[in-house]
């Protein structure tokens, strides 16, 4: 009854007051939501700022050329040597090898799920890929150490089974779900009309898949591949546990390597905050950060249509 009474009042104070309250009821939540949402920007800015702040001081100790081209990583020797080339080469090598293994395989899996798999088995395949993606990397690293390494050592008669091949294989497994799932999304989005056109010309299913559908989805697949590479560059536990950890430039797949991520993880724990070694490890973090940001920009450019003929 009171409410009905209020509606009748069309002029004067009460209504004005209510309108004011209502306005506050809008402005306050909007302000709160917006400022909380902005924490994403703050966070990313802080990450870049703190990484640079803690990483840049290493340049007072040594030169950029020494870091980039030096082949000796002896941060705690006297005098210390901060050559990161072997570590960078290690990162590049495992990333390359794992991508070579995982990208084609992942795309093939995506093709299977989008174009070949019987409808009933689709969910099963997608969920098993997802579960594969949920395996914690420390568990995969453990498998590399405890299962693959001894076998590889015996079968291939190597000095150690903890090497580039072992780590790359596991990294491949780790990035496979990312690549396959994202590729599948873009393959599935290729219009049926493209497939029909190929079939109507007498194309077989595989010809249709490999010559038409794959090309139609090439952008999405390129993005998926880059995101896979990105995960591979930044992955830590697998390379920490299975790559062998030797700071040398790898020349064979059986060489042990020490990628950037594993160096940070292995050494940060024992490094005093503020020491040159600490700054050097942060410098590596900067490198990794900039590589992933660059790859991210590449993905964005592919997305917005750059690079098409």
């Amino acid at each position, binding site marked *: 009854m009171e409410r009905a009474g209020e509606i009748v009042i069309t002029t004067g104070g009460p209504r004005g007051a209510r309108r004011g309250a209502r306005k506050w009821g809008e402005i306050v939540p909007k302000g709160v939501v917006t400022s909380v949402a902005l924490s994403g920007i703050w966070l*990313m800015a802080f990450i870049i700022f703190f990484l640079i702040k803690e990483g840049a001081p290493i340049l007072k100790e040594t030169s950029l050329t020494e870091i980039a081209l030096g082949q000796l990583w002896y941060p705690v020797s006297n005098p210390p040597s901060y050559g990161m080339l072997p570590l960078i080469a290690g990162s590049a090598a495992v990333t390359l090898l794992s991508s070579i293994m995982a990208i084609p395989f992942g795309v093939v899996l995506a093709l299977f799920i989008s174009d070949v798999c019987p409808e009933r088995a689709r969910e099963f395949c997608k969920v098993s*890929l997802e579960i594969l993606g*949920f395996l914690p990397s420390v568990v995969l690293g*453990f498998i590399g150490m405890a299962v693959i390494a001894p076998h590889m050592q015996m079968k291939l008669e190597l000095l150690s089974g903890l090497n580039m091949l072992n780590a790359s294989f596991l990294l491949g497994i780790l990035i496979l779900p990312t690549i396959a799932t994202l590729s599948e999304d873009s393959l599935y989005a290729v219009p049926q009309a493209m497939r029909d056109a190929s079939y109507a010309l007498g194309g077989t299913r595989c010809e249709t898949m490999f010559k038409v559908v794959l090309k139609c989805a090439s952008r999405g697949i390129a993005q998926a591949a880059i995101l896979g590479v990105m995960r591979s560059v930044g992955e830590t536990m697998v390379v920490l*546990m299975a790559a062998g950890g030797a700071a040398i430039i790898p020349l064979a797949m059986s060489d042990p390597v020490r990628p950037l991520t594993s160096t940070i993880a292995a050494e940060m724990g024992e490094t005093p905050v503020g020491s040159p070694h600490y700054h050097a490890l942060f410098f590596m*973090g900067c490198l990794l950060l900039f590589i992933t940001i660059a*790859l991210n920009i590449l993905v964005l450019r592919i997305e917005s249509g750059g690079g098409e003929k």
Partner: protein
Amino acid sequence: MSIYLLRRAADRASTAALYGCMALSAAVLGLILAFLAYRGVGAISWEFISDHPRAGMTEGGIVTPIAGTVQLILVSMAFAFPVGVTTAVYFNEYSRGGALTKALRLAVRSLASVPSVVLGLFGLAFFCVFLRFGASLLSAGLTLGCLALPTLITASETALQNVPREFRDASYALGGTRWQTIYKVVLPSAFPGIITGGILCVGRVAGETAPIMFTGAVFFAPGFARSIFDSVMALPYHIYVLATAGTRIDKTEPLQYGTILVLLALVLGISMVGIVARARLRKRL
């Protein structure tokens, strides 16, 4: 005519190869899980689950790291969940696609691609050193929260987008303000989807090692963390420690496999709950 036979043979062969690839992947996954379950199940006992590590971590149980992992999940979600959902609300309800929104989108995407070990470095420099939280549950949890944030934002946004327009229209038609509509209509109907995304996120966070290695997870703690400024043990880091730092690997082997099985059960259990919930949600849509 032979070209047709050839092409048909090629088609059959590649189809078979595709089936083979999928079967191989499923088999690798099955093999990994079966092997770990087989090796780990012997170590599982009530004592293993409920006891603290003893004798230089060569005996006893893993209740300390289990509790630590749960605590880390709670702290990370306490930070990431509200921020993530609020950001999604901003994207979906308030943003008008201006420069600010674009910058925020770019930031969120970049955040999603920051390597976990780099997040660990950031956590160390910012939470531990700059904010003086030290190597603690709080620092490690917040670092994990940063890792979870982008995923949570995306999941919540999808859930918000799936709220039918009519719901909003109905609320506006009844004179509801924007905030009333969001708070009373949109969020409740998106809630199941948001929670599902949150669960899947927890599954990921629980298995992460690199971000917590130098922000709060420790080699050994005598007991549970009693405050957020205590350091903690965590299951994934415990696995790493047992596998690499043990001087008596043979003696700790059952412990290693047991710990792995517990972590896997935790991570995959949580993830399966999320996957099943998501499947149900999709069916309802």
